[in-house]
């Protein structure tokens, strides 16, 4: 098959022509969806801010549905497909398998996204991201999501095919690079996720056109969350891979131990899909045994995996920095890190926010009994804005500062603003998550238009602190939207107006990754052991916060009405 390979003069990465085009289109499509998602985010925030309450109820629920679909599915999935092609074709230096089919997948996803958005904005499909039956959306709402899922599944298939191509063409030797292995993890979880999605959305589509009479609402919730939660687990695997990628590119960091990091990814594959249970802990239809076993990912093995990555990613950075001579004290390696480089600063904020806020709150929220304190409150979106947004989205944003020069061959415009953006977005979004969780702890509902309950037969006055938290949600939400908008402006501006960069040498043949001889490996591993005391301190800090917050919530639970 005729194709060409370009070696980027800056990074040394090798891009195959077809893969490069597909990555660009997928990334750009992702950014455009984020634009829609960002505008809807602003409208949601300005409505939930009690002092402003911008939209009327009907429009609020419509916009909130669009925000969920466009951010959680479309922005992230398109970007993830680009990540998958990068982790296969680019890192393994081989051609992309079946580019025509990959394009088919892309257009299916694009068409599906548009169709679902049309359905939402027509106004008959304000059923939220979760679309719990028996509330019914227009038939094309479901059809669009099904098309997106089929397109994504094709993308995942092309990724698997590309791994086979690399193996057959011997473009690398030995085992897959860790980042590709992490992407493989994401792709395997994605396959399960999309099949669950098909398992529920296809019948729901048939129900919406009248071919199926009824869908059990409890069954729907269980299978739907096999899609809804597992797709967030694809994100975890993908953004952890991006963390390793950033550490490798910026610091030349290598994993502390290949075995440990890969084992942690394996735990994700084995246990993450049980997380559907997290959304059913306060449901009537599941037994306590089922809840306990599933919500804990079968005894917390996937939590253990995340704790391992949370240690090995900063550990790898610390080891690399110490090898470079930043050995003073516990934290010189961190102080002297390139904080002015948005690729690094964004990645590190993502790591810290995901671990301390998203991770801890997620485990507490997913504890069977404690869930009753938080189920369907504002705590839930607070939690997932510190996982999906400061975790995944911020990691993807920061890697874009690398991709624009190497993939799109454009220099980033306005470098000063590029430096600021990860801080502006990452910190405001982290605080937003915190105050949302604060409001949720006080009982404030998610997906709720009016804290004053206008039109209700009774009154209920939320505590003053709840209004304060919602006001802060408004303030930090707006700052976060500005941070996100700045990223879109910088990326789109650079693609259009950034200085064109040299593309580098083009060849008809891939240049395989040079085989590292055993001798070289022995040298590299002979005396390179460095301790990582700074990371140990950070990890222990995380652990202490985790334990304290976990038991504080049991204390809260012990104070409510008795239930049995």
């Amino acid at each position, binding site marked *: 098959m005729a194709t060409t390979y370009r070696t980027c003069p800056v990074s040394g990465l090798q891009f195959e022509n077809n893969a490069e085009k597909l990555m660009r289109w997928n990334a750009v499509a992702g950014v455009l969806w984020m634009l829609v998602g960002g505008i809807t985010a602003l409208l949601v925030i300005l409505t939930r801010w009690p002092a402003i309450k911008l939209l009327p109820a009907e429009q609020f629920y419509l916009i909130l549905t669009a925000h969920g679909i466009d951010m959680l599915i479309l922005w992230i999935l398109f970007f993830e497909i680009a990540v998958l092609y990068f982790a296969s074709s680019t890192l393994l230096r081989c051609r992309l398998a079946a580019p025509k089919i990959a394009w088919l997948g892309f257009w299916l996803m694009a068409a599906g996204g548009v169709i679902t958005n049309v359905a939402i904005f027509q106004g008959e499909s304000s059923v939220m991201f979760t679309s*719990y039956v028996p509330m019914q959306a227009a038939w094309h709402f479901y059809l669009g999501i099904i098309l997106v899922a089929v397109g994504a599944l094709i993308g995942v298939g092309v990724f698997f095919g590309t791994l086979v191509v690399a193996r057959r063409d011997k473009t690398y030797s030995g085992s897959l690079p*860790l980042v590709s292995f992490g992407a493989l993890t994401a792709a395997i979880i994605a396959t399960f996720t999309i099949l669950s999605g098909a398992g529920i959305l296809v019948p729901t589509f048939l129900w919406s056109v009248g071919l199926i009479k009824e869908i059990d609402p409890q069954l729907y919730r269980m299978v739907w969350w096999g899609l809804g939660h597992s797709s967030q687990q694809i994100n975890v695997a993908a953004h952890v891979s991006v963390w390793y990628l950033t550490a490798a590119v910026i610091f030349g960091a*290598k994993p502390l131990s290949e075995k440990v990091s890969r084992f942690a990814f394996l735990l994700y594959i084995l246990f993450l899909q049980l997380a559907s249970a997290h959304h*059913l802990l306060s449901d009537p239809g599941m037994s306590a045994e089922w809840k306990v076993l599933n919500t804990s990912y079968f005894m917390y093995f996937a939590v253990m995996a995340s704790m391992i990555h949370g240690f090995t990613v900063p550990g790898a950075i610390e080891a690399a920095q110490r090898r470079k001579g930043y050995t003073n004290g516990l934290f010189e390696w961190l102080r002297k890190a390139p904080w002015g480089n948005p690729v690094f600063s964004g990645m590190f904020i993502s790591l810290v926010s995901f671990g301390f806020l998203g991770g801890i709150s997620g485990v507490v929220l997913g504890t069977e009994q404690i869930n009753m304190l938080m189920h369907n409150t504002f705590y839930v979106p607070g939690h997932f804005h510190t996982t999906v947004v400061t975790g995944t989205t911020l990691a993807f944003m920061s890697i874009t500062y690398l991709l624009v020069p190497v993939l799109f061959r454009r220099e980033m415009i306005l470098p000063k603003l590029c430096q600021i953006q990860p801080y502006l977005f990452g910190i405001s979004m982290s605080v937003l998550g915190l105050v949302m969780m604060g409001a949720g702890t*006080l009982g404030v509902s998610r997906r709720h238009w*009016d804290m004053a309950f206008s039109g209700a*037969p009774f009154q209920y006055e939320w505590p003053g602190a709840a209004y304060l938290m919602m006001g802060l949600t408004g303030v930090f939400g707006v700052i976060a939207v500005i941070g996100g908008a700045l990223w879109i402006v910088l990326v789109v501006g650079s693609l259009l107006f950034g200085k064109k960069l040299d593309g580098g040498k083009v060849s008809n043949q891939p240049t395989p990754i040079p085989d590292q001889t055993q001798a070289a490996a022995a040298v590299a591993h002979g005396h390179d052991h460095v301790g990582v005391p700074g990371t140990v301190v950070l990890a222990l800090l995380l652990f202490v916060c985790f334990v304290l917050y976990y038991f504080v919530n049991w204390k809260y639970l012990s104070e409510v*009405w*008795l239930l049995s």
Partner: protein
Amino acid sequence: MSAILPPSNRLWWKQPIDKVEWAWIAIAFVWGMVMFVMMIYWHIYGKQNLSNETYKTTPEMFAAKAEKFIAENTIRTETEQNIPVVKVPASGEGYLIARLWAWYPILELEKGKTYKIHLSSMDYNHGFSLQPVNINIQVIPGYEHVVKMTPTKEGTYAIVCNEYCGIGHHSMLGRIYVK
């Protein structure tokens, strides 16, 4: 050398794991077990566990049982809509209907007594969110969930609906009195 290249040591699985990493893995493992056991411990010794008693039902069946309960136990009506206030009898069996967009009826309970409250929905998913106690339970059509609860403090409590159920969702507010 790095995470974007194949492992430089081809036999990477034979490389020993550093002591510090082992220690962290051990901490994570033990902590996971503690959290797992904690949920089971709370089922045995804790006083806040969500009931497992659930029956399949239909809106018609559930409404009939609830109406009978209301007819037998109403003590007064309140508000312009004459919503019945129902004192749950000593037997402790009470019914609460979730529907677009109301919690029906108003329940009256006594502090320290244990009640079996039957919850179900007539239409969409709803969310039973008792405030300011902050207990949140999903209410699903077709499922009758029998929740055993014991109020610990007197007062007037609100039931907020916290599962999106359409345009009137924000006006779906119910009430429970605890005497």
